[in-house]
């Protein structure tokens, strides 16, 4: 699958990106919302993994912008959130409107957990 990884932290992004690549996914790692839109425009992602704690834009704003484009509506999204922002990302309205499949608390989500969540999205889409 092609994964668009939106993670402002360079080192975390590198760790997530390497783990997903080893799990046989193609990863486009970007740090900003602007770069994410450009990356999605260049290669449509099968799944978006986004850290909602972003500087300047917040990740929820980015997802509203992302899903406003017809061609990207319905793209499954996995959200990485801090414990404090977990509730916000979990809100039903956010999940339903923005295609959020799962909200993962960063401190409790290891690399294998992230890979498992991405695989689960792929399997769900295949069986649908």
């Amino acid at each position, binding site marked *: 699958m092609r994964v668009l990884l939106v993670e402002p932290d*360079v080192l975390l992004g590198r760790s997530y990106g390497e783990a997903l690549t080893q799990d046989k996914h193609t990863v486009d790692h970007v740090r900003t919302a602007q770069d994410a839109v450009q990356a999605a425009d260049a290669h449509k992602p099968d799944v978006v993994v986004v850290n909602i704690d972003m*500087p300047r834009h917040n990740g929820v704003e980015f997802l509203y912008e992302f899903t406003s484009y017809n061609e990207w509506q319905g793209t499954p999204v996995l959200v990485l959130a801090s414990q404090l922002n977990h509730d*916000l990302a979990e809100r039903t309205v956010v999940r339903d409107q923005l295609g959020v499949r799962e909200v993962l608390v960063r401190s409790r989500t290891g690399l294998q957990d992230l890979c498992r969540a991405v695989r689960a999205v792929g399997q769900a889409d295949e069986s649908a």
Partner: protein
Amino acid sequence: MGTGEGNDVQQSTWAKALSGQERLFVSLADGVSHTMLQLARLSEQAGSTPRGTQAERWQIVRDLSEASLQLLEGYTLTMRLQGGVAQPELEPLTVGSLLTETKRLLEPYARQLSVQLALDVAHGLEPIISDRSIVQSALLSLGQVMVTAQAQSDAAERTVYLGAHKGRYGVVAGWYCQNLPLSADALRRARKLQGQAQQPYSQLVGGPASGVFIAESLLHTVSTKLHVARYHNATGLAATLPLCNQLQLV
């Protein structure tokens, strides 16, 4: 970012009950937690990487740990000074040597985030009078935030300048970037949100920006504070350090 209206009210009430020192501690804890998260993910990945890459990974672990230690040392120094256990030791200082050493100490962290550091000290600066450890610790804490902010930006050229020039009331020393949105308003808002919001200075950086607040607490102990400054087409966060009048007479 809030966590729902009810939670916002609860969080705000809780935050108002915190003293300035407690808010600084929360900010520090958030900063160190973030580093621990980076280290945890690096270690998790280490087992499945080739040996050559492992050496690079250990270097990242070392550089991140040392950056966190710099923050912790800055924080403990602040607490000691505020508690009267330690006193600032004022002495004449050459700004050039202080900034050169500071840049050298921050370079490993900047390298890991692919950010260049550059020194830009005006010629002929007069000596200042301050406490070397306090000013250096403040600049290191602040520098970490500026480097992180630059790494998170979408700028093609990622350079942070450690600069000093003569100002009206002394020598203005701080960190500058050409492409970061810094304003006095955003700094004021960040001060209010310190220890309350997860991203109190979200205009500048994602995360807790602990280094800004630790730097500010340290600088307060030598009677100065952070402000937004401009130098050579760059905007930055800097402090004005008083000139050493005795050495000027000599």
